[in-house]
């Protein structure tokens, strides 16, 4: 199948492209940018006039809930939702049931993804067996079957000795370690940011130090072990300062933040709004603005959806008893474009944070559109608004904190490996 994508505004930050260019795709690969290769005849022409054409989005942290929690969501349902937001690759966290700590579970996920034949799944293998924070997994075997990194999901890695050894071993296997930083002792039974609103509502708080202490520990151990560490879902201004200093000293550490934390702050949990019960918790407005600044400054490189679909019962409970997380995957692009519209981010920085930068962390071949790269492409209409309605979501998880929000962009086409997997037509 050959496509010509004409008249679109091509944004490809990896190649410093930001202008009207035609894009030519054949047999799964990009074959021409700006001009068609000799003798090229398209099977299908897409007129992208007035639209943005960019690499397919790479989402560094999602939960697909399969295997084990199919009552919340399935690989099929969530990949449908992903491609509707122009996402072409998702990194799924290993906290499935059973845990993705052995090749059999990785193989199962791989097979389900093949059956579905939509979005790429880039699995993160468990860093420790059962995510128990004690025994290392067979990282090399997991890598050979296709896991692109290791992660302990949101589970406790509180034993610094185990963390040190895990970093060393992963480094030997040439695997990037994705670390979620939250000190379990300081978190305690906390469910919201520790601050004035949590105090008023009587909800146990998670202090910012639960994250910053854990970040500083991760940075020190990354420095000692030489492991490649990616800090997953950073929320605090204090963490940004620590990461910036480490990077200034030459530590090759990367970081991402979740889309909810770029739009919402801790005041959203007022009236015990369980849709805003997240882990990590929503932080202060100061933190939110610092995260946006860190994305512009390059201290934080990527924006992920931190997609956590839930069944309705999971949120229909008193706040502390409700399950944390938000269903965000299908609104990722629109929510980021809202930040562009509000001038927190430039279009190029925003696209880079969704494509080239996260791809560089997990699979550098993706997230860019130079010739001979896989043709993962997202085309969206930057002027066509879209209003979020919980009831008509594609994801099986209807738990969005953004119900009723108007988003300033709508995806019109998604291509993966040169195949059209989503179109609004």
């Amino acid at each position, binding site marked *: 199948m050959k496509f010509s994508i004409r008249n679109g505004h091509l944004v490809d930050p990896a190649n410093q492209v930001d202008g009207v260019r035609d894009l030519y795709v054949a047999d799964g690969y990009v074959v021409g940018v700006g001009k068609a290769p000799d003798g090229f005849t398209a099977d299908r022409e897409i007129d992208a006039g007035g639209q943005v054409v960019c690499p397919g989005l790479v989402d560094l942290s999602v939960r697909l809930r399969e295997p084990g929690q199919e009552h919340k969501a399935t690989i099929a349902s969530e990949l449908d939702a992903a491609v509707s937001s122009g996402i072409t690759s998702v990194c799924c966290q290993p906290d499935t049931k059973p845990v993705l700590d052995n090749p059999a579970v990785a193989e199962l996920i791989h097979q389900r993804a093949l059956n579905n034949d939509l979005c790429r799944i880039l699995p993160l293998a468990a860093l420790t067996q059962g995510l128990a924070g004690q025994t290392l997994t067979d990282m090399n075997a997991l890598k050979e079957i296709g896991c692109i990194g290791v992660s302990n999901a949101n589970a406790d890695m509180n034993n610094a000795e185990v963390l040190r050894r895990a970093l060393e071993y992963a480094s030997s296997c040439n695997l990037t370690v994705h670390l979620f930083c939250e000190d379990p002792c300081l978190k305690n039974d906390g469910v919201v940011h*520790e*601050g*004035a609103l*949590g*105090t*008023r*509502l*009587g*909800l*146990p*708080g998670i*202090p910012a130090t639960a994250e910053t202490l854990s970040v500083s520990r991760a940075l020190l151990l990354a420095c000692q072990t030489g492991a490649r560490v990616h800090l997953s879902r950073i929320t605090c201004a204090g963490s940004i300062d620590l990461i910036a200093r480490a990077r200034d000293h030459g530590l090759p550490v990367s970081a991402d933040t979740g889309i909810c934390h770029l739009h919402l702050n801790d005041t*959203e949990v*007022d*009236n*015990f709004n369980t849709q805003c019960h997240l882990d990590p918790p929503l932080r202060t407005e100061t933190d939110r603005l610092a995260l946006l600044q860190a994305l512009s400054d390059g201290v934080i490189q990527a924006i992920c959806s931190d997609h956590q679909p839930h069944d309705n*019962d999971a949120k*229909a*409970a*008193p*706040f*502390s*008893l409700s399950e944390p997380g938000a269903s965000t995957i299908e609104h990722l692009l629109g929510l980021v474009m809202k930040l562009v519209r509000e001038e927190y981010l430039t279009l190029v920085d925003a696209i880079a944070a969704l494509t080239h930068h996260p791809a560089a962390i997990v699979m550098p071949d993706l997230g860019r559109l130079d010739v001979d790269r896989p043709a993962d492409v997202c085309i969206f209409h930057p002027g066509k608004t879209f209003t979020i309605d919980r009831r008509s979501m594609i994801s099986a998880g209807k738990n969005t904190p953004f119900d009723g929000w108007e988003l300033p962009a709508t995806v019109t086409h998604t291509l993966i490996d040169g195949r059209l997997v989503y179109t609004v037509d």
Partner: protein
Amino acid sequence: MTHANIQLDENGHLKHFLSIYGLDRGLLLSILDHARSFAGVGDRAVKKVPLLRGKTIVNLFFEPSTRTRTTFELAAKRLSADVLNINISTSATKKGESLFDTLQTLEAMHCDMFVVRHANSGAAHFIAGKVAPHISVINGGDGRHSHPTQAMLDMFTIQQHKPDFTRLKVAIVGDILHSRVARSEIHALATLGAEEIRVIGPKTLIPTDIEAMGPRVFHNLEQGLEDVDVVIMLRLQNERMCSALLPSEHEYFHLYGLTEKKLANARADAIVMHPGPINRGIEIDSSVADGRQSVILQQVSHGIAVRMAVMAMTMGSLADTPTLESRDEV
């Protein structure tokens, strides 16, 4: 984002009583006024008025509490309502039945009001958001969040002794961090216009940013009690002891236990309150608890009148807006 206040109906009447926060001064004063009217009922030959005859009130207690449940039960019975007590241990709900299922079962029994006590903050709000429109919900204490009837009975007790809230300095002493009573009292005192609210305790028991709710924070009891008109001592749960929060009962009593000597720092006519049950010798000395300035037993008897007032007001809110004529002539 603004939410309509779930506690009020479209006419601004009290529909649910979930937290002091969100209610205005007029409404709090009206609760106190009604409580005064109901206070006499307990002194009569027949300790009942027929106001809620035919109504069914369910005491839905997910957390054990004999005291609070008893006063709610007595209040409901004095209003001639039928009372059903249901104690659901949280372990039972964990075994499968969700809170939502429990509610639906009870609604099917045609109940009119739930009095809810639950170990998790926000449980009463959650239930109020789920019940059928004709049902009122009263919060009998949820987690660390709110215990509004306790706060109002304390305000009633204060008002009996010190009618003008705007001239009062009130100190709340002890475990503010875990206390729903303290949070509700702070809101009530602030709404009623208290001149100064203080919280006194070690840093481990004072929640972050409590100042945003209005009070001044003291870590020294003697200093914090200076010139206050009302001292509210909080109960210290045993499980707080010998943990990272507090080293020992002995040290706590030494620093924060209320003795006659420390009480001398307060105004000479200051009253001493405690929501009960009292830990004598831990947060308060017996000579103070039983002393001349103590109003602790009055608090208990006021609890019934205040709860009658709140039950009558919330059930009454379901009525149509009354016209002057229909009120004046029967």
